[in-house]
């Protein structure tokens, strides 16, 4: 089955959910990726979880869009040395899983945890693994797939490096991968590394976060239309060919808030993605 091309909501923080869905729908996207921390959703979920869920469900009913979810990422850390923070993180992610289950989203993407040291230690990895073990039964209950996002290649404090994701996959059969094209190539545009990671994790990639990395460090998720390097597009085609379990391709473009004509930019992005993957 062909993957759905979705609009990422993380860069549209000032918009209401309905407006984001309208943009996605009008532009021709098949789905949306919603961050639970999108202020319009987050504030409601924090105030009253059930009412927040109802709000999202009712809004989505007006659109023919499939939904994938990005879990909480701010200040939570599955590998924290602080047991209280680890506990809160697990609670928060369990709530995210429940949210997915209730709005019938199949995939929850979570971020790699972080270490406060200059490189992950065995403790960090063990804590992360403990967290995953605590979350998986919950995923089963709500029929949700937990997908770990590949971290920025330059982030030395990311605990779950691609090698560790690979180890984690071997330990936990039911953990999946969200492959972020901007993160894996980094500011140095290391396509070889991007391909290596994709090849290693190919059996587990359920979602691709699609964006160019403009290498200046401030706009890491740049529109595809700003990329002039054909090697990047060649890499994307190869990565796509590896992924036989892919469900979603999410266009994650930075600074959409500052763009006046969001729809025409997104239409162009969608056209590039469709042509690239023949979708």
């Amino acid at each position: 089955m062909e993957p759905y091309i979705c609009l990422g909501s993380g860069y549209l923080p000032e918009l209401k959910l309905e407006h984001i869905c309208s943009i996605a729908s009008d532009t021709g996207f098949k789905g949306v990726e919603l961050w639970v921390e999108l202020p319009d959703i987050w504030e409601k979920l924090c105030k009253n979880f059930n009412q927040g869920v109802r709000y999202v469900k009712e809004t989505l009913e007006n659109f023919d869009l499939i939904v994938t979810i990005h879990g909480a990422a701010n200040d939570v850390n599955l590998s924290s040395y602080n047991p209280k923070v680890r506990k809160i993180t697990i609670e928060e992610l369990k709530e995210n899983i429940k949210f997915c289950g209730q709005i019938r989203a199949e995939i929850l993407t979570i971020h790699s945890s972080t270490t406060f040291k200059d490189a992950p230690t065995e403790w960090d990895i063990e804590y992360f693994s403990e967290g995953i073990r605590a979350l998986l039964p919950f995923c089963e209950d709500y029929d949700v797939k937990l997908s770990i996002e590949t971290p920025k290649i330059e982030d030395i404090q990311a605990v779950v490096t691609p090698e560790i994701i690979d180890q984690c996959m071997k330990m936990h059969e039911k953990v999946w991968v969200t492959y972020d094209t901007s993160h894996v190539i980094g500011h140095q545009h290391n396509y070889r590394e991007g391909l290596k990671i994709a090849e290693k994790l190919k059996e587990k990639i359920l979602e691709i976060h699609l964006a160019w990395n403009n290498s200046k460090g401030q706009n890491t998720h740049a529109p595809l239309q700003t990329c002039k390097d054909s090697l990047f597009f060649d890499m994307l085609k190869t990565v796509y060919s590896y992924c036989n379990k892919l469900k979603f391709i999410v266009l994650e473009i930075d600074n959409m808030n500052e763009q006046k004509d969001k729809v025409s930019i997104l239409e162009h992005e969608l056209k590039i993605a469709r042509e690239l993957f023949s979708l």
Partner: protein
Amino acid sequence: MVKIGVSIITFPFISFSEALQKIEDLGFKAVELWTEFPEIWKLDLNERIKLFKEILPSFNFDLSIHSPITDLNISSCNPKIQEISLIEIEETLILANKTEIKKVIVHGGFKPKEKPFNKLNKNNLDPYIDQTSNGIKQILKQGEELGVEILVENAEYDEQHKILRTYDDFQTITNKINKEFSIVYDISHGLPAGTKKNKEFIIKMKNRIKEVHLSFFDKKIKKHHLPLTFQSKETLEILNYMKKHLPSSPNLIFEIYNLPPDVSIRSNTLKHSLNLIKPSVGV
């Protein structure tokens, strides 16, 4: 008379009592305790109180405690993390109260680093300043009730998502809570702003600075908490300035962390750093 001390975190690979003994043997008169010191961190509050009561009476240090900071944020956009951050500080205040330690050091909060909030609040810190103000107000009240002085530390000037970095930040929070709380001034954190801005901060806050944290910030590699060297001219200039302008003599605490784990290397580095500052502080 200024007392010079060391953060206990300088010696994380030996036991709590061995670390204190090492600091005493090196001739330091003050210690900044951290609840995140490995041997303390694994204990619950009652066990921490018991350990402090067993070990600390054998030493004659002027003490302060740094409350935990790793993965905590009193201004978090996640209310659960915000609550836990305040609970950790409250527990540190209780520990201080039960063990007769009079000063507790706390950090301000920071705005979200991740999407989607970081875009929304790119130029707008207001909700997070409000949360920091509310948090500090609550901590100050608890400190008063427990007879513990709260010292709020300036954050790294170069980490722009952090809230209490500048004089203006401190003034904004002070005005919001309508109370002049005490400050621990970390010279390394202030150094990215340059000597002039550091001096301005010191002169404007001179009556509120009750402790000073001392280490080197290397602008080239952008790293804080490095040992002092002969190149640390700005640090020594700031220390001289403090000696001239501060009405009191706050304790100077070495917070040098980026070192090899070997205890003798760490001890020698402290001795060397101490010798470097002696002319500036007059001891």
